[in-house]
């Protein structure tokens, strides 16, 4: 195997500080999304005027979106596997697939938001609207950031600036991407599936 997988960083811990920093960042992001989810649950069922969740949610539609994001985690980990083996052609294919799946997810979320607004649910309409849009909106923003990072990696690979020795860059973006996936796993269950 080539790349950072066999490279031992010269740090006090013997671990790469960038990866350590990424895990610390993800740990802090747990607090961020944990607070937003707690707020959503706190306000759950306390809106005094509609629309209410059961009026607007389209579970089959959101299920497909969730499936798309889950599968993007598979393509992301396959991209990492490809660069660790020095297979740049497959790396680019999987990176592009991951970005496209992410774009599909975000596009679906934008469409969902549009439908909700048409049905009268806005950020300031009621407690449900406020907590729902803030939580899922921040998640969507994270996914969008991830897409930009994926496309950046794709461009770097195209121009030859992403050799196998720099596989850690793909791994770090992958960690971020998987994190937004696990956040959605929680949101999908807690926000959409668990009945009020």
């Amino acid at each position, binding site marked *: 195997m080539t790349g950072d997988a066999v490279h031992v*960083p010269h740090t006090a811990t013997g671990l790469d500080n960038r990866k*350590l920093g990424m*895990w*610390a960042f993800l740990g802090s992001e747990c607090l961020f999304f*944990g607070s937003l989810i707690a707020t959503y649950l706190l306000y759950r069922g306390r809106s005094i005027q509609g629309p209410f969740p059961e009026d607007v949610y389209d579970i089959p539609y959101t299920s497909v979106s969730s*499936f798309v994001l889950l599968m993007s985690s598979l393509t*992301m980990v396959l991209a990492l596997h490809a660069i660790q083996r020095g297979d740049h052609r497959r790396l680019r294919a999987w990176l592009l697939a991951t970005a496209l799946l992410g774009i599909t997810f975000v596009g679906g979320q934008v469409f969902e938001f549009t439908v909700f607004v048409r049905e009268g649910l806005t950020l300031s309409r009621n407690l449900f609207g406020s907590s729902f849009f803030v939580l899922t909106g921040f998640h969507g923003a994270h996914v969008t950031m991830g897409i930009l990072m994926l496309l950046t990696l794709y461009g770097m690979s195209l121009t030859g600036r992403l050799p196998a020795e720099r596989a850690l860059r793909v791994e770090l973006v992958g960690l971020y991407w998987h994190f937004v996936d696990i956040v959605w796993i929680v949101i999908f269950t807690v926000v959409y599936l668990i009945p009020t």
Partner: protein
Amino acid sequence: MSTETERQEFEPRGEAHLPAEDQAHPGPREYVMIAIVLAIVTGMEVALFYVDFLSSTVVVTALLLLMTIKFALVVLWFMHLRFDPPVFKRLFVTGLALALSVFLVVMLTFGAGVVPAVLAVAFVLVLLGLFLARPRFLRRA
């Protein structure tokens, strides 16, 4: 923490230093298997949403259990926490435990009910068990 434990914790982890069970990261085939399991579990979650002959407590408990399984699969396999040095795992679990503590405090302080809090505690215990204990059934053959 003992010196020996510290050395094990922070020892450079090139593949030559890994225990035999950790040397091989999963290959594409195992990743695809995990993805299939994730898809099946997601299908079960959606099916549970439409089930109307079970009590809501049973449905909520089952949904949280399935969610925990998906969460753990992604973190342990796709994010490689099963295979990487334990310090990464502990950093993440610390953040997760703090987040769930905040969640519990908010729920209990503002009177969101005991059931969500109990379920959250169950979620914490399952997660911590997965991350820290590394049960034998999760280890690679």
